[in-house]
């Protein structure tokens, strides 16, 4: 009987904690975030994730629809630790300095950590950026902070093409109705 009551109490507490986690950062989300913020010492230098990526993770974790249980947090932290160990053992301070095997191993850990929350990892081989997606919508990306905010030449070419087509059309009509002498 005591076991049944204890189980019921645990279930109720679990449900309450899940509801409470819907607002801001709870204990589990904070644990993940703090691990991401961890600075490590490699070859006498302090290395950490870029602040922009941490802010993206923080913004994502603050979302109402993101709920992390203690077990999920443990798994995610385990994958983060594995990635950290790879960097430590390689003794490099930049990802670009890692060999392909280590890069692949880190990527596997990123994929596994994201997978715990049902997220997917997409890699753009053209600009070598990584984007984490939830339901095909980005939640974090290594893309540059500044975007293209001018007019692309492709739009101009389309416009010129339309103008040329119009001129040719006008000429053809003029020719047909004999506005232009043959």
């Amino acid at each position: 009987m005591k076991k049944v009551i204890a189980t019921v109490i645990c279930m109720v507490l679990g449900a309450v904690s899940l509801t409470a986690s819907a607002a801001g950062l709870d204990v589990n989300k904070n644990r993940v975030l703090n691990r991401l913020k961890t600075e490590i010492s490699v070859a006498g230098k302090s290395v950490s994730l870029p602040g922009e990526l941490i802010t993206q993770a923080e913004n994502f974790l603050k979302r109402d629809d993101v709920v992390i249980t203690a077990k999920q947090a443990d798994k995610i932290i385990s994958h983060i630790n594995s990635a950290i160990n790879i960097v430590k053992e390689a003794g490099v301070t930049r990802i670009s300095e890692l060999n392909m095997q280590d890069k692949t191993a880190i990527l596997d850990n990123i994929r596994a950590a994201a997978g715990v929350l049902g997220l997917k990892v997409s890699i753009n081989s053209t600009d070598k950026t990584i984007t984490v997606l939830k339901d095909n919508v980005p939640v974090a990306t290594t893309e540059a902070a500044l975007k293209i905010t001018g007019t692309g030449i492709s739009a101009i070419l389309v416009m010129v093409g339309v103008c040329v087509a119009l001129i040719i059309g006008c000429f053809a009509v003029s020719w047909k109705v004999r506005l232009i002498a043959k």
Partner: protein
Amino acid sequence: MSKPSFLGNGVAVYFYLPLLLCAAGYIVLMAAVFPLLSNALSSLGLFTSDGAFITPETKAIFEQKDYGALNVEIVYEKDIVMPTYGTHYARLTIPSLSVAVDLYYGDSSAVLKKGVGQYIGSSLPGYGRPLLVGGHNNGAFGGLQHVKTGDIVTITTNYGIYSYRVTGVKIADCFDKSAYNLQQEKEQLILYTCYPFNTLGLTDKRFFVYADKVSGPRIVSEPLE
């Protein structure tokens, strides 16, 4: 037999003169219709942009409210709905420049066709940390070229109205990360657009506008005692 004059020459009359008039007409036309043209180019860009990840159907959580009710000092984090990528969550206005545009969380090319976009590696208004917002120079942020120190930029969200005072501008390369500090412990609004303004074609230069927070509710995670 006299030599034919320049105008009497068939090539001049039937080729150079029409070409000259055509070029002059084009310049006059461009000067007159450039504002309309820029909008048309922007619309055409919808079909030529990459549109990576995000579909044209962006979401909106921003609601027009009684703004007087938003005049509070603090807001609890639990009362805020964090936007997802591509969500219209606020309205950005610069009254002195007649700029009034929708502010989205996320800054893909599809988003920038609809309004101005916030880099997701920067914080929402009220967190006491920087915001990085980009917009097209042939659209909403074309007016930034006339911004002056002291101008007020306002961001209206569902949870509060935030005012920022312009402190300066800067032109920098798009690869120059020193142009924007997203790690500072200050709520600085950083607006940017491509530079020079009214340039057709892409450029590596960006025009930055920096503005410090003047007013707006602080977001706190726990109720204050």
